[in-house]
């Protein structure tokens, strides 16, 4: 059986979708759910935070969780259109 390598856009969508489904999620759980290597996971997360798709919340007990921003929610809503755009234009 062969598996198709996930495109970058699919990885981003999977990460954001996982955060949305959980509302708030711990970094370790998100790493497992993303199915990425720790190094790749860090790169994607840093980019998503810097582009304001997700944010890292730290509570009083120093517990870290990721949550979705408005931009991240917009991305999920437009994902199908973006995917269709890429296929239609051969990008």
């Amino acid at each position, binding site marked *: 059986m062969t598996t198709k390598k996930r*495109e*970058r*856009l699919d990885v*981003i969508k999977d990460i954001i979708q996982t955060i949305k489904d959980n509302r708030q999620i711990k970094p370790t759980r998100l790493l497992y759910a993303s199915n990425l290597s720790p190094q*790749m996971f860090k*790169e994607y997360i840093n*980019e998503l935070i810097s*582009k304001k798709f997700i944010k890292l919340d730290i509570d009083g007990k120093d517990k870290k969780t990721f949550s979705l921003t408005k*931009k991240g929610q*917009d*991305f999920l809503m*437009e994902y*199908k*259109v*973006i995917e*269709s*755009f*890429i*296929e*239609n*234009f*051969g*990008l």
Partner: protein
Amino acid sequence: MSLSSLVIEYKWMLEVFYALAITAICMLVVLKTDKFYKLSLHQGIRYFRNAFFFFGIAFVGRYVFGIFSDLALHSAFIVGFFFEYFLIMAGFFLLYSLIWKKIESPNETYLTSLFNAKIMIFHGMALVLALLDKTLQTYYFMFFSQMIIFAYASVLSYKNYRKNAKHDFPKFYFVATMIGFVAWTINFLAASYFEWHHGLLIDVGLMNIMFFLLFLYGVVKVTKK
């Protein structure tokens, strides 16, 4: 009065209108695709957006500023040089949006898509081609580069059409790139063998408008879903 003589009579007005229409189409495509790039961070969308940004600058520069520079500043050389440079860059960006996946690694990201290491090669080539044309007082370097770019883009868009037959737009994309190729070829023939025949140049202008309208149609159609 024939269509050709009408066009000649009101040439500068038509040229400004033509440039503004194409620039408006390009800006609409840029605005729509910029929104999708910012959401997706997809490099292909980014390069596609850049192509239409450069097409827009080229046309507004050539026909709108060009008209005033002809009248006031006599700087046709500079206007012509930058028109060619931006137009060649637009062609490069359009082609690169179709092949970037074969050249860049999946996680390669750049701070800017206008001046990164790979795109600098295109800037260099566009500058050299535009400079050669202006120095030798020809248009052949621009014509040949665009004919090659659009021929290659036609082949790639045809492959995409065959691959994505379930979608509507790939066939229009293929038609648009073919129109682009034919328009550049007629432009070359008009310059080389027909002394810039007005009828042929009108055909080229109409084909250019069709080319841009097809892309606008695709962008609007796909993004309104």
